[in-house]
């Protein structure tokens, strides 16, 4: 395997036996992640993202196909892989509530054989970076979700992994903390050449901001794989519009003629944003007249550039659930 490749899968598959039958969590996954890349797996809950991460981190065996991390087989060469990777999951509650932040981090560092002095020095450095220095001696049972997730990120990078797996790292975090985490990820990648991150997320903007390449995954299958720009180019011939309505007005709206790929996003200010595609640019006047004639109060009406959300809807045929998306990014 070429040494520029950090992760490679060949027809990778995984099934689970359940009472109701066999569930195919992954079907013939073929990906190659280059060293030095942030590679995103974008998909809704249950798409197979976490299953793929568990296989690559040696926590789960594939039921078909092969997977390699830094050239090592995930089935047979577990120790060689575990020495070079680490993982952080969103909503993780690992550690011991009776230990302080610093003690927990030190304990996990010992599982990677980091000499105690170096571990403590690095912990202090990262606590400072993440603004947790004042909470270093706080028991982790007293931490908020956001602080805890910052600690988890530090735990993941303390061993200086060559490949870091981030499974929904900003899940449930408020906007500010999620932004801190994303900024840090970018800085950490620049610190050292050949660091690789495999990131799963169902936050579209997060994938767009962080990832060099993105694989769109749903129902255990990869539906598209390209750079964010490349994915958006798939929609270059599509005509995309967005309108904003007052909430009361939106509730009366039964249909919008001539439109397809119709999605609705509640806005922070209580208004409703509706995004749609049209096949014929000329129809936009008719849509505008339809809304006007039916008494709808438009607060905004604009043509727009495609986003990853449009790409996702185009490829998968459905949108990521609204309740999974932060209203304000």
């Amino acid at each position, binding site marked *: 395997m070429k040494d520029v490749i950090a992760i490679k899968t060949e027809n990778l598959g*995984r099934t*689970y*036996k359940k009472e109701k039958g066999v569930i195919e969590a992954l079907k013939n996954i073929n990906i190659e992640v280059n060293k030095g890349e942030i590679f995103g797996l974008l998909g809704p809950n249950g798409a197979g993202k976490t*299953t793929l991460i*568990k296989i690559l*981190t*040696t*926590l*789960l*065996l594939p039921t078909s196909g092969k997977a390699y991390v830094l050239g090592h087989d995930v089935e047979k060469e577990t*120790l060689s892989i*575990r*020495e070079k*990777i*680490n*993982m952080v*999951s969103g909503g*993780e*509650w*690992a*550690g*011991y509530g*009776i*230990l302080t932040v610093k*003690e927990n981090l*030190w*304990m*996990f*560092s*010992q*599982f*990677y*054989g*980091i000499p*105690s002095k170096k571990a403590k020095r690095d912990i202090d450095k990262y606590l400072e970076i993440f603004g947790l220095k004042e909470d270093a001696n706080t028991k982790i049972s007293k931490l908020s979700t956001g602080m805890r997730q910052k600690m988890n990120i530090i735990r993941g990078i303390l061993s200086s992994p060559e490949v870091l797996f981030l499974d929904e790292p900003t899940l449930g975090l408020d906007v500010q903390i999620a932004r801190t985490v994303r900024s840090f990820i970018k800085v950490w990648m620049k610190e050292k050449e050949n660091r690789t991150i495999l990131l799963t997320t169902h936050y579209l903007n997060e994938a767009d901001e962080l990832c060099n390449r993105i694989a769109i995954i749903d129902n255990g299958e990869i539906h598209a794989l390209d750079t964010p720009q490349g994915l958006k180019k798939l929609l270059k011939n599509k005509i995309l519009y967005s309108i904003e309505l007052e909430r009361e007005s939106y509730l009366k709206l039964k249909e919008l003629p001539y439109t397809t790929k119709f999605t609705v996003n509640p806005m922070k200010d209580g208004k409703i944003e509706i995004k749609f595609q049209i096949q014929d640019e000329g129809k936009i006047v008719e849509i505008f007249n339809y809304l006007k004639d039916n008494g709808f109060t438009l607060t905004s009406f604009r043509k727009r550039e495609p986003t990853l959300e449009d790409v996702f809807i185009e490829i998968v045929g459905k949108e990521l659930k609204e309740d999974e998306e932060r209203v304000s990014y």
Partner: protein
Amino acid sequence: MKKEYLIRNIRAVFGRAYPRVIAANREYSWVIADIVLPLLSVVAYGTLYKFLGASKDFLGFAVLGGAMSAFWLNVLWDMASQLYWERMSGNLQLYISSPISLISILFGMSIGGMFTTSLRAAATLIVGTLIFKLDFSLINLTQLILVFFLTLSSLYGLGMTLASLYLIWGREAWHLSEFFQEPVYLVSGMYFPIKFLGRVGFFSSLIPLTIGLDGLRQVLFKQGATFGFLSVNIEILILISLTIVYMILAVFYLKKMEYLARKEGKLTIRWE
């Protein structure tokens, strides 16, 4: 085995022992749970023995049983159940994905548990001795040391084995621990010499506490040998055998548990 891997595992042992050695003493609720409560049983048995006019050594048997019960509780609740709790909190998958052997994690738990529980057991023993004004007669120091440490090593070996078995069996950990807790008090002669249970003693000898407690009574009290189940030297041999068997079983079941975790994907997923 590579030197680097060995050092990493030694660090892991100390890392995992740390929460038990240092942090477990931060919350003083242990004084009630681990000293006051066992003492209540000890006092109940002691008072009964006194009322029946039994020799003073029987009071000592009860106090020693109360002290050693701390180890059994620690093995059940903080060893056997521990991987189950670790799975629930998400720690187990971090342990499995770390570049160490899971045995190091269990060793760390054991060392930490032995250290902390020894402090609690010593406190029970001291308070019980003061209450009942016990007379100890040290018969053989070497045997005492051997019996004590072999009891702990085999007992924690059993705990390490049960830790994986609890996960493989897939039952709720607290139900299993509750199931094992009280019957073992009876069949291992926690508050009376096991000799009185006759042949049951042979079966309960599979629990290291039975043999260990009997051996300790024989080397610490004048009448210990009179009520002894087997000779102390034979008991030492049994404890050595149990240590070896349980350690082998612990490694075997730990590997099996990890294999099942990777094959079925259940053991590292919370709430499944």
